């Protein structure tokens, strides 16, 4: 009998599913997390499809197809009827589409499982793919690309530009929800074709958690076994163009404050010892939305320049509204990334220098024993907050499968905090971090003068409206003349209206 990959918070449980001959969906396609005391049932249906699978000129297709499945009519029910039937159950199902994964997830109270399951499987297996639904979904995306991202979220815009630059020419380059021209051109035939080639029984992993019974497993095997099989055409991992020196992509926008992101590819994914070692250094440098972040201390805490400054070794979508990392945003190719939230325009050069200088300092000096001990002590318990619910633990379990991790990333993470040494961490920093070859994304007004300042490596003094301690003022002088010379040919400026069109 085949054993299943199970995740369980307190203890490991072993159950097996009888593998009948010729089962179209096999036992090893299940990731199970039974929790008897949970009155709800959580589903995460993972299809091996993402924006990396978008055909050229059809960027956004993976995303649109997923939306058509979850937010459209089925053969049985119009979209309104779907909403009406879900309404009293207080349940929904939603698609999270990233570069490598599409995960359709939802949760229902046990009392309503029968009705919910019928609606969920109907959506997955019998989408109607109606023109009216496609029009509505496309309109939503175009509003997001044309208006919201370009105009009302400069920090998300900065990150999007950075990823676009680092992954230019690869399957990771475009935004998940596409480009304006491509989205406009996507048709129902495109959607049907993508659905048939990617929503396949041999490309699905079924995550199930909470208070479910065995019958649900056999129901899922039977029902999702109705998907056709498809050949695997997943593209190889992207190979980002090598970065030569410091390259700056500026976006000219009439903005009152400047958003900055910078980074470079790293060859490290979770599961390896080095990843956990680098995670400690990264947490010290820029733990997401935590005042323990060193970058936060330098730029916000001491100088009051902005709302926060953080760093990452894994892609972290939605950072502005999340406090903790998302699940199911896995990538085979990650980057090291620094996020500087909008600073007053006149301090942009100073803030950039301050951040780069801190990264450089970390590489040169490593962490001290004290910093190491505090950070690993922090992470060991902080990680407990990452997945307090069944649904979140189930998400991590799927991610474990993606990354080929035997066991649980979260449990390994915590145990590594006891096993790693200061040397491990500083060695990982020296091996994976550097500041000579990076891409920088800047969203700002009057970009040309910033370009000139970088080209000339001009000093960027800073002044404050309120007094600062002498040590800060002394350090300001060093920051203000920190060498960060960039040749003119490595700086581009585009107007914001040109972004995301193609």
């Amino acid at each position, binding site marked *: 009998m085949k054993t299943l990959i199970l995740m369980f*918070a307190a203890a490991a449980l072993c159950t097996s599913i009888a593998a009948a001959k010729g089962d179209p969906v096999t036992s090893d396609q299940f990731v199970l997390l039974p929790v008897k005391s949970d009155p709800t049932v959580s589903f995460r249906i993972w299809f091996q499809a993402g924006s990396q699978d978008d055909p050229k000129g059809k960027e956004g297709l993976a995303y649109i197809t997923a939306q058509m499945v979850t937010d459209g009519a089925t053969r049985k029910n119009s979209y309104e009827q779907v909403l009406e039937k879900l309404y009293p159950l207080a349940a929904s199902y939603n698609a999270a589409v990233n570069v490598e994964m599409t995960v359709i997830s939802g949760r229902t109270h046990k009392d309503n499982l029968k009705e919910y399951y019928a609606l969920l499987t109907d959506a997955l297996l019998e989408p109607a793919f109606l023109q009216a639904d496609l029009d*509505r979904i496309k309109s939503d995306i175009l509003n997001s690309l044309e*208006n919201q991202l370009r105009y009302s979220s400069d920090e998300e815009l900065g990150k999007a530009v950075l990823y676009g630059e680092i992954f230019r020419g690869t399957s990771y380059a475009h935004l998940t929800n596409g480009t304006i021209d491509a989205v406009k051109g996507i048709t129902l035939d495109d959607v049907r074709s993508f659905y048939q080639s990617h929503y396949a029984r041999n490309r699905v992993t079924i995550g199930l958690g909470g208070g479910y019974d065995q019958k649900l497993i056999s129901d899922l095997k039977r029902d999702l076994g109705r998907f056709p099989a498809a050949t695997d055409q997943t593209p190889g991992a992207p190979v980002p163009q090598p970065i030569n020196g410091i390259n700056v992509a500026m976006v000219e926008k009439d903005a009152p404050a400047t958003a900055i992101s910078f980074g470079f590819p790293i060859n490290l994914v979770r599961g390896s010892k080095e990843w956990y070692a680098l995670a400690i250094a990264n947490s010290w440098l820029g733990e997401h939305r935590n005042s323990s972040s060193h970058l936060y201390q330098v730029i916000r805490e001491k100088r009051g320049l902005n709302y926060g400054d953080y760093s990452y070794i894994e892609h972290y979508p939605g950072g502005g509204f999340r406090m903790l990392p998302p699940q199911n945003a896995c990538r085979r190719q990650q980057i090291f990334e620094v996020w500087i939230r909008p600073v007053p325009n006149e301090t942009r050069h100073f803030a950039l220098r301050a951040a780069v200088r801190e990264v450089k300092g970390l590489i040169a000096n490593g962490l001290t024993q004290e910093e190491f001990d505090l950070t690993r002590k922090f992470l060991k318990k902080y990680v407990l907050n990452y997945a307090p619910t069944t649904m979140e633990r189930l998400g991590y379990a799927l991610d474990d499968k993606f990354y080929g991790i035997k066991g649980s990333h979260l449990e390994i993470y915590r145990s590594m905090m006891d096993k790693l040494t200061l040397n491990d961490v500083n060695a990982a920093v020296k091996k994976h971090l550097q500041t000579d070859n990076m891409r920088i994304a800047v969203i700002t007004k009057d970009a040309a003068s910033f370009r000139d300042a970088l080209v000339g490596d001009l000093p960027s003094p800073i002044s404050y409206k309120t007094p600062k301690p002498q040590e800060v003022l002394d350090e300001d002088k060093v920051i203000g003349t920190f060498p960060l010379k960039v040749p003119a040919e490595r700086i581009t400026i585009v107007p914001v209206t040109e972004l995301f069109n193609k």
Partner: protein
Amino acid sequence: MKPLVMIGLFAIAVLTATAGPKPFFPYKYTRHVLPNGLTAYLIPMETPGLVAYYSVVRTGSRDEVEAGKSGFAHFFEHMMFRGTKKYPADVYDNLITSIGAKANAYTTDDLTAYHLNFAKEDLAQVIELESDRFQNLFYEEREFQTEAGAVYGEYRKSITSPWSVLNEKVQDLAYDVHTYKHTTIGFEADIKAMPDQFEYSKTFFKRFYRPENVVLLIAGDVDVKKTVKLLDEKYGPWAKGYTAPAVVPEPPQTAERTAEVSYPGKTLPILDIAYKGDAFDPSNKEYVAAMLLGDLAFGETSAIYKKLVVNEQRVQRLDSSIPMNRDLPLFEISAMIKKADDITGVRDEIYAALETFKNTPIDARRLSDLKKRNKYGFLMGLNTPDRVAGGMARFAALTGGIETVDQLYAAMEAVTPQDIMRAAGKYFAPERRTVVVLKGAQQ
């Protein structure tokens, strides 16, 4: 579809069919009140060793009654992280970091909440730190001034959203004298002037951060007896002295108000129609009916949503809000409209929908579907200590406790189609409304 956001607003549960009032809230809790008036709710629940600790101060931007001082409740929330003599800011931060706590705070119109999530073995440490900073907060002028910079940074970040620009205008226009006139982050001019308000900030602490004005919500893996003992010991010395601010009540609105506001970037036009509502009160039948009316009239299964969003696709999104407030809030309907020349048309559709609800009783099945939805939504939302304590925060701020959840449940279960008609007629009258249209300058 829109992901469900359960904020613990609606509460319905049928546990067992026994006689007498049924408690709706599904966990057994203990209420403990100290002699100085500090109230604590301890809510044990199953969890993998986590505790959520919320300190709810019943003060928000509503309490900013002095001219030129808008935004101070929020600014003060920032200052609460600046340390005490016993635990200066960096020591506090280090301790919070070393226990791996997830810690933050937020400010709204009626409350300020300080929340931590941590491992159960660190509860004593958290009580030590929280009791200290609420009693002995200490900061110098320089740190105060630096933090003002961060607050201005937060303002700059948030004003890039058209919704922030819109809300500023709607509130300012709808209210003449009540402090709901300004948004929680405050007027830009007041934020700019903050660095010079060091002395004022200290009076804020003295008047409002007092035990009678605070409710603690502690949920998760907690030992009630031991925790109560610690609370008595650590918060006991905290001196009373809450001074209620003189919030001027808003006089009734007698005529419709309208305005247009411009957003410096690109956005689809947004229409906001705000009606003067009623303060939170489970015994106010029309108010409770209005809470249900919002979803029935404008939710995803409403006639107007199907028409404007799904079928005719004239509207990008449609939202309504019937909030819970200490004083008279705005009951709002907002629509992001695809074409500027359709604003009037959409507006009239909204008015027509409201007329229908005034004159035609809702289908009984739809009403019972909503009640079922609220039941399961609430139950499913109470699955972590943070959601339990966090979900109860607003109830605690408005009423000083969480017992009101059971009252609200009973009241909602009793709402009839006639109640809904009366609520529609009462609140959604033209003379009570303020209508603002926001347009992008760069279309």
